[in-house]
């Protein structure tokens, strides 16, 4: 499977994502500069974490106007796989590829720590290698990761099983105490209605090796690879 990891000038998890992806079997991953306009060569696109254009105004607000985002929208419309991690999730929301918005953390601080998230449904491109209800240990690192949406959007997200990850404690309880940033309904990651675009605040690439403290992030990447394997034309 061939991934493009988009490199905005202020991306800083771009190389981490490339590293985590390349460690998996049958994967190629390349950095693609934000001025690129054609992404047709890639099966999957990753918008990595960082501060795309400094983000002093609103995270991801400028990135949505970048040349590469037109190509990302096209790829999303064509049903190709798009994953936005942290700043990438913020950019997907700003670009309206995903509903809702990510605002300043409750408590106002930037928070970097290990968190637990619960897989809300495993019948998806991004979570099929996990069990529904299972708990993943994946760290967060953000100042603006508090997920907000209006009631109608929230209802839709629930009805259409678009919420894939919720913050929870070690035992899988999505309690208020386990919610690091004040996100509505403990939301940590959502997909679009079509199911091919996924945004999440936790950093799966930082939980990709035992020596980093957790390998649970690979569940997400391996799910995508498995789905791609089953759906690729070569697979019979």
């Amino acid at each position, binding site marked *: 499977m061939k991934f493009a990891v988009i490199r905005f000038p*202020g991306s800083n998890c771009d190389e981490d994502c490339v590293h*985590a992806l390349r460690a998996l079997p049958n994967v190629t991953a390349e950095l693609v500069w934000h001025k690129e306009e054609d992404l047709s060569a890639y099966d999957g696109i990753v918008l990595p974490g960082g*501060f795309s254009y400094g983000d002093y105004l609103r995270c991801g607000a400028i990135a949505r106007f970048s040349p590469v985002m037109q190509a990302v929208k096209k790829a999303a419309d064509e049903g190709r796989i798009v994953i936005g991690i942290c700043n990438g999730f913020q950019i997907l929301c700003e670009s309206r590829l995903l509903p809702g918005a990510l605002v300043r953390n409750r408590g106002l*601080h*930037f928070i*970097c720590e290990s968190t637990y998230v619960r897989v809300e449904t495993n019948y998806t491109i991004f979570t099929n290698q996990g069990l529904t209800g299972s708990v993943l240990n994946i760290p967060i690192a953000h100042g603006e990761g508090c997920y907000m949406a209006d009631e109608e959007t929230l209802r839709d997200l629930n009805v259409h099983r678009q919420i894939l990850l919720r913050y929870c404690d070690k035992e899988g309880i999505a309690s208020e105490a386990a919610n690091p940033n004040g996100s509505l309904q403990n939301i940590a990651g959502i997909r679009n209605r079509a199911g091919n675009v996924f945004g999440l605040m936790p950093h799966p690439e930082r939980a990709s090796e035992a020596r*980093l403290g957790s390998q649970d992030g690979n569940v997400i990447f391996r799910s995508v690879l498995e789905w791609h394997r089953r759906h690729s034309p070569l697979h019979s």
Partner: protein
Amino acid sequence: MSASPEITPEIIDKHGITPEEYERIKEVLGREPNFTELGVFSVMWSEHCSYKNSRKELRKFPTTGDRILVKAGEENAGVVDIGDGWAVAFKIESHNHPSAVEPFQGAATGVGGIIRDIFTMGARPVFLMDSLRFGPIEGDSDTAKHNRRLFAGVVAGIAHYGNCIGLPTIAGEVYFDESYNGNPLVNAFCLGVLKHEEIARGAASGVGNPVFYVGAETGRDGLAGAAFASRELTEESKQDRPAVQVGDPFKEKLLLEACLELLASGCVAGIQDMGAAGLTCSTCETASRGGTGVEIEIAKVPQRETGMTAYETLLSESQERMLVIVKKGEEATVRRIFDKWDLPYAEIGSVTDDGMMRVRENGKIVVEIPAKKLADDAPLYDREAAKKVPTPELDLKSVKQADSHESLLRLLATPSIASKRWVWRQYDHMVRVGTVVKPGSDAAVFLVREANKILAATTDCNAIYCKQDPREGARIAVAEAARNLACSGAVPLASTDNLNFGNPHKPENFLQLREAVEGMAEACRYFDTPVTGGNVSLYNESPAGAIDPTPTVGMVGVIADEKHITTQAFKNAGDVVILLGDLGDELGASHYLKVIHGRKEGRPPRLDYATEKGIHDAVLSLIRIGLLQSAHDCAEGGIAVAVAECCLSADKPLGATIRLDAEGLRDDQVLFNESQSRILVSVKRANAAATLSLLAWRGISAKRLGEVGGTDLKIAVNGRETAWELEPLRAAWMDTIGELMES
């Protein structure tokens, strides 16, 4: 240009130049300087840039060794070999004065500055550390509130810059003491990695080569910041807020990537960042190092504001700027790379052969100074040192024995000892996916993937010891840094230091500086950790007086094998706890004395080099054999605090049962003494006997103290047991700073 003010004795004095120094300037020039030149001399000959009051002392540091590729003082940062063709560049630098008046931007630009120092060397920055000092943050007094504001602002500023640029802040230290009221310390450390052949030089070589200005436009911010940093802070210092720069980490990220790309292209003859003293310092230093001259045209410098004079442009400390000397004919490469990164750049001059730093404004010469004399010939002073008076020993009889149970809880809750989780949770400490030991252990451990090397790093300084005996305190700072590295499985490589002291014109302050430098130099020699560079920050005084002398040591080591990585947390119930070293008895200058009895007095503990080194070697050998489950050094708060930290650092706190038998000693003396050369380790029960006999065979004093497990921490001193429930201990240690800051 508006007419330059006439040079009067008042103007000279306002520039911080003494009448003798003015005479020397006239000698260098062979004439009177004009106003702009006076400004140039004032920043270059400030303590911050010239080290005129400390350089003679700094020469006492060991700076050479087999692994040293670039020596201290040669370039912006030293470079040390780590094997297999790879090297590291690292350095620590202060931003104390700016942080005192504008904590957020002061700290942020401190981080920005040290990062530039590292990539100027051609190294890719890989991680950051910070050593911070503030006045006490407890209570409702205006001073405490102000200290909390400074602390919050500094931490947010470091987070803002480091997080955005994408460098993990993986370790550091924070201490609180009355002596830092009004004068906090902010020392930022950066380490970068490079191949031996990638070392870049800050020399203006090649006569005729074009000189490029790259990065952010120049504004009026940070005007003469170097001179500002070379004065005492006063009530009026707030008016110096314009001397504090404003940081733009996004721009620095672009500058960092563009400069590394430019260096990789092979078209760079020399490169230097514009930090303190900005354009002035970078032009005269590159010329001085290259043995050449540099001529620039001020009108070509990209400017953010209109109507700036040559004086302002030369002395501005606007951030995120570099000076690059490009090989002639390669100008197009610079344009291509800086256009790609959407960064401003301009060809502003060229390298000349006459040794002059010459600045023109629309063709007219406004500055013409021999570069080498400006950069290197600042006057050097032997300041008067007060006579050394030995510190009296603590009279133990005058110390009333406090309740052990309450004392430990109070020590764990004192912000200097309490967990700094509230701080490092705000720093992105995981980006670059290399942080294998996260903040909160003795040293942070980082996997540098480019080089496939595992590094450990720490910063240390106990300023109470240094206040009571600067020589012993500085020796201990070095020993503790090396001990922390040994505890994490690393062999120390080299060190960097940040010397934070008061006004050197006061003999008692200068004595502290001299004593600390000599102690540190001696210890660095003993532990074979040459000093690769660092920073001197003098004039750290508020109206209440000088800070406690704070010679902070940053030390870096290499861990040979991933299996050797060791942390302080107890791992399993049933493991046996062993102490390497003696139980000790020294309470002088201890945190127990300060926190429980409100007394900062007595002689600090004594360091014995051979014992200390023996302990480091022993712990490393036990780690290599694979015997240790955990290792933690005994520092502030003594054995009691060290054991509690081992219990509380575990993912889920673990209890322990400890027996300390020291006949003839008081309970508080046994529990909280801070004698040196002690490491607390835990081993599997089956390995306890083997560990003890190996230690005996090495001639290392060691004792089996007890074992890990249970729901309480129980410590018996000479048969009298005290028990602490884990949850109150955890809350005292883990939650105190957060509660103080968020209430």
